[in-house]
């Protein structure tokens, strides 16, 4: 079985290809060039594995939250390939796979994605299971949520900045907060793994599947005059 997975939800672009024997991955952190890079680099992986697009049996992509543009590129590409080949596709919530390799941690695992405007997409995980909704939270809300836990571990491409801010503000004691040493690395291989799990459980996406944007409703935004 040949499986391709894309993560386009943050500034890190990750692509993973799993064939029967081998896992191939490419990751780059060139900010938001996903539309230019995704397909050529996918082809590079196909060439490395000596397979053709029509040999793909399952397509997986990140579901968000994250960059709106990035999410649409990933999902449109995944859907396009899946429809053309008549194979299933599965989308995996981004925060889930960012946290998924840290379920050993004895405390709260908090993946964060920069939502800009001093906000973060986040959720809280304990022992591999999600304890909150997918949130669009401010710094103070994250501190408040963290205070329910003795120890917290931050991960995600933006977490080192948040970690440093928290240490600088002394909002959480140094000995209780940890930073995933691989927080900046692509976790597209985890996206692929969880996508395969979902597929094995029969949880493939429908044609009209959409990314998780966490759009604030217009009423909440002080917006258009």
């Amino acid at each position, binding site marked *: 079985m040949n499986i391709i997975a894309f993560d386009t939800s943050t500034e890190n672009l990750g692509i993973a290809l799993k064939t029967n024997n081998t896992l191939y991955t490419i990751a780059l952190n060139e*900010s*938001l060039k996903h539309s230019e890079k995704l397909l050529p680099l996918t082809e590079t992986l196909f060439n490395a594995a000596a397979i053709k697009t029509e040999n793909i049996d399952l397509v997986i992509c990140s579901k968000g939250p994250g*960059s*709106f*543009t*990035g999410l649409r590129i990933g999902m449109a590409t995944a859907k396009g390939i899946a429809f053309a080949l008549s194979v299933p596709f599965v989308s995996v919530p981004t925060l889930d796979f960012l946290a998924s390799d840290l379920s050993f941690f004895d405390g709260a695992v908090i993946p964060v994605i920069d939502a*800009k*405007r001093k906000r973060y997409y986040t959720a809280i995980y304990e022992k591999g299971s999600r304890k909150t909704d997918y949130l669009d939270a401010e710094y103070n809300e994250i501190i408040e949520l963290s205070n329910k836990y003795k120890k917290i571990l931050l991960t995600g491409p933006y977490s080192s900045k948040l970690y440093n801010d928290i240490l600088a503000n002394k909002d959480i004691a140094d000995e209780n907060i940890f930073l995933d040493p691989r927080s900046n690395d692509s976790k597209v291989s985890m996206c692929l793994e969880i996508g395969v799990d979902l597929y094995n459980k029969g949880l493939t996406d429908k044609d009209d599947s959409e990314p998780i*944007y966490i*759009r*604030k409703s*217009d009423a909440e*935004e*002080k*917006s*258009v*005059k």
Partner: protein
Amino acid sequence: MGSGKTAFTKGIAEGLGIFNTITSPTFTLICEYEGKIPLFHMDLYRLNDVSEFEMAGGRDLIYSNGISVIEWAEKLTDYFPDNTIKINIEIEENGSRKITIYELSS
């Protein structure tokens, strides 16, 4: 309208080494140009709500490594980053323009 917002943007574009024809993005919402630094020229005049801007990828662009020039920015209050420079163009009675460039607030 007709105050010279697009003409002003052309000047910024030239400064970035962009000599493409800069047209008003009133109908396209966002135009992208490749220069020394990317230029994103936006016009929010026709914008109905903030989600329309977000779905067009506006947030990704204004926080990226480019310069965003945003016409009718007052349509979205409290949306833009702290390092936003506000520019006001007024038409004087004699037809000349009074351009005010505000300091960063913080």
